[in-house]
């Protein structure tokens, strides 16, 4: 007994030291491990911040634009009264500006050409419209406000630097000097870029806007919602409330789970083969886009609806049945109305998801340039995500900031939809 106690005491010091050392090591490992987890989360959140920060920092410039206010003498010698729209107003303006500054042009008129390229082609349309509306102005000097061309606008926003060698930028030193001079004269003003929200797509960045794509996306989502929500709810009600437990129901269930994981581009191939090549529906139309997105949204919609149907306690069903309601009456009169907040939340979230889907749209033809604002579901139209893709591919640098702005518009719509879903859930969800 005492021997054993002695031995214990003798052994205890090195043993305890070893244990203490081991414990220290183990605790250090514990702290390290905890930091791995923290770092992983920090990394993920940093990526999120970087992603959103980059988009905002690239895109906020697109929300304002520079316009020039210059006087133009509507020279009667240059304007054909019978066809005023045919006048080369840009040339006229450019030449008058050069003359006013005392710049002598060469024989080819290359300086006038360089000056002309600083202004948007909108200048021509504005002057033509003015002259057509009020022909009496011919022979007078009128002040005209016009957007700058995309490159001039970029310089005025400070995104084209003079330090870049002139062969690597799209504006010459002379053009930059002219812009500086216009600015010094107070002819340049920065204002909110209305064109971005009120115009359809255009080949010229300063005139391009997202309205066409927003309307196209809205039409498409309308088609998707009209098709997918009734079908999805119907399928979910069948599987959850009516389906007998047999092989067929099991097959359908497995099928739906697998469809939810099919890559979206495969749905694009399906849409191309089925709706366009076989049914000959119009290419690039919101109708076809909506159909494809509806097929794609169905599985997630079914899964969401089923889980909210499952959340309705069986006592509701049993009470209805006990009062003599038929199965159909119990489901449509009691279970489904109670599950409705959940169903609508799921529907809105899957619509928001469909709004951002791009790959299938490219395959059904929404990759080509569509000017203007679409008005019908069977006409070619753009969509927000495909517009983002098209603009990102454009060579003009001014489209890059507009791409980021279009992304902000898209994200804003998605945020609004998701907020609506969250509010709906908070407001109407019942816990049993």
């Amino acid at each position: 007994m005492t021997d054993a106690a002695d031995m214990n005491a003798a052994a205890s010091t090195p043993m305890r030291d070893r244990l203490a050392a081991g414990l220290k090591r183990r605790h250090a490992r514990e702290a390290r491990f905890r930091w791995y987890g923290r770092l992983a989360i920090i990394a993920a959140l940093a990526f999120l911040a970087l992603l959103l920060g980059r988009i905002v920092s690239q895109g906020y410039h697109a929300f304002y634009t520079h316009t020039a206010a210059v006087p133009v003498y509507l020279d009667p010698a240059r304007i054909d009264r019978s066809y005023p729209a045919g006048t080369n107003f840009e040339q006229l303006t450019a030449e008058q500006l050069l003359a006013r500054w005392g710049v002598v042009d060469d024989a080819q008129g290359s300086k006038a050409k360089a000056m002309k390229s600083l202004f948007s082609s909108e200048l021509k349309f504005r002057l033509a419209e003015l002259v057509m509306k009020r022909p009496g102005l011919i022979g007078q000097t009128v002040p005209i406000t016009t957007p700058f061309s995309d490159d001039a606008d970029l310089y005025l926003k400070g995104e084209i630097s003079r330090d870049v060698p002139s062969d690597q930028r799209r504006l010459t030193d002379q053009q930059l000097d002219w812009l500086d001079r216009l600015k010094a004269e107070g002819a340049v003003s920065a204002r909110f870029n209305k064109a971005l929200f009120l115009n359809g797509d255009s080949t010229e960045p300063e005139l391009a806007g997202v309205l066409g794509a927003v309307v196209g996306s809205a039409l498409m989502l309308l088609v998707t919602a009209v098709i997918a929500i009734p079908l999805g709810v119907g399928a979910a009600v069948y599987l959850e409330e009516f389906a007998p437990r047999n092989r067929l129901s099991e097959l359908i269930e497995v099928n739906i789970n697998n469809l939810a994981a099919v890559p979206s581009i495969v749905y694009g191939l399906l849409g191309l083969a089925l709706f366009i090549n076989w049914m000959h529906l119009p290419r690039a139309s919101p109708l076809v886009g909506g159909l494809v997105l509806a097929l794609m949204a169905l599985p997630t919609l079914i899964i969401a609806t089923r889980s909210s149907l499952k959340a309705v306690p069986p006592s509701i069903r049993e009470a209805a049945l006990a009062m003599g309601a038929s199965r159909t009456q119990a489901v449509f009169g009691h279970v489904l109305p109670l599950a409705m907040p959940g169903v609508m939340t799921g529907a809105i979230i899957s619509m928001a998801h469909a709004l951002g889907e791009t790959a299938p749209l490219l395959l059904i033809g929404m990759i080509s340039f569509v000017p203007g604002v679409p008005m019908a579901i069977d006409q070619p139209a753009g969509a927000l995500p495909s517009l983002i893709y098209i603009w990102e591919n454009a060579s003009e640098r001014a489209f890059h900031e507009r791409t980021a702005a279009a992304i902000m518009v898209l994200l804003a719509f998605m945020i609004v939809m998701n907020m609506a879903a969250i509010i709906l859930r908070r407001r109407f969800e019942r816990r049993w």
Partner: protein
Amino acid sequence: MTWLLPLILLLAGGLAYAGGLALARRRGRDQRSHSRPSQHAALALIWTVVPALVVLVLGQIAMPTVTAGLIEAREAPAVAELEPFRRAAFYSDARRVGAGEQAQQIWPAPLAQELTTTGKRIVWVRDGLTLALAAAVAAAALLGGLFAFARIRPGFRARNKVETWIAVALFACSAIAVLTTVGIIASLVYDSWRFFQSVPITEFLFGTKWSPQIAIRADQVGSSGAFGAVPLFAGTLLIMLIAMIVAGPIGLFSAIYLSEYAGPKTRATVKPLLEILAGVPTVVYGFFAALTVGPALRVFFNTIGGWLIGGPLDGVGQYLALVQNQMALTAGAVMGIMLIPFVSSLSDDIINAVPQSLRDGSLAMGATKSETITRVLMPAALPGVAGAFLLAVSRAIGETMIVTMAAGLAANLTLNPLDTVTTVTVQIVTLLTGDQEFNSPKTLAAFGLGLTLFLVTLSLNIVAQRIVAAYREQYD
């Protein structure tokens, strides 16, 4: 015309409902009726609309085939002599001419006249068929409605009939899901089969040269275009691996931290933020990759290359100095970021499914939390986590926009993450966008790739779901 028909049908249905309601009320005035008048009326509506709708849909489906059959029955010999691809192109041009549009191709002399006459005939035949279809639909609606009206009697069990119809309709809704799968498989297999007639399947699966651009012209079918998809598979694999290297550890560790260490407050803030990352559309990630990550990585490697040039690692330096924006690393890294929330939320579910008793037992034996996680939790959760990773892999393989915008088009057979590679999805998009005549092997190749993609992701999903299901069962 065909667009108007559903609307007219809807109107007819409304009339049938109103009529049925009135009739049921009158006939059931003197005695107790089994079903309510509205149920009789609903049945009248169903019988008016549904048969007519079936006729309409069947007619619409059959219309192209019947039209083609009628047109081809009187086909000009010059058209009959054309080879299949050209013949299909001729007919699609004839349709365009008939609709008053421009033909896409220029046709030589005998065919050019034939184009106009065929176009006219197509329009004529189609108009006639549409009229016939409208008549058939009207007849079906009328007969169905009359049948239903004839059956309105107090003793008739209209409610049961309506409920059967509802059950059938609900079943049809869920059958759409199966039909979608059938549609996907049918369209992919049909067009792939046409593709494999001009390009042997072995060449497609094992060939190492991919240059579909050469085969644009129809007379070059299969002879000079190279359709060996191995470089695409390798590129897809490479980008997927990079993505998993990024997403795997970050996703798994954040899931472990969130479920085992984080307090409720941290969870409540971090989880929604990760969900935002999951909700960002892929086209936005593509933009981020193409205009932020790509240039940043290029500058980084070019700078390192600049330092190394002239030193002992001159060769490496030369290579790094010429690295492009569109390297596999760009697309892979951004795809990894996209997958983080996916991996994290799946792993979170898996880890939470491990019974608390396992944790308690391990902690009671004196293990630290990290020891519990690495030696008890992880081995227990391993199958589930593996399933989650497989699902992420399948996502990465099928992801399109990031690679389309940030990876290149050059089909290099390489495993170097700094090289430009291309993927299956990029090629599908490239082959099917832009100017194209649909019936060339070049565009059909996209369906071959699509079929491969579908089969691979489907098997990955099935395996992953099996694993996860078996894992869940173990602890239920």
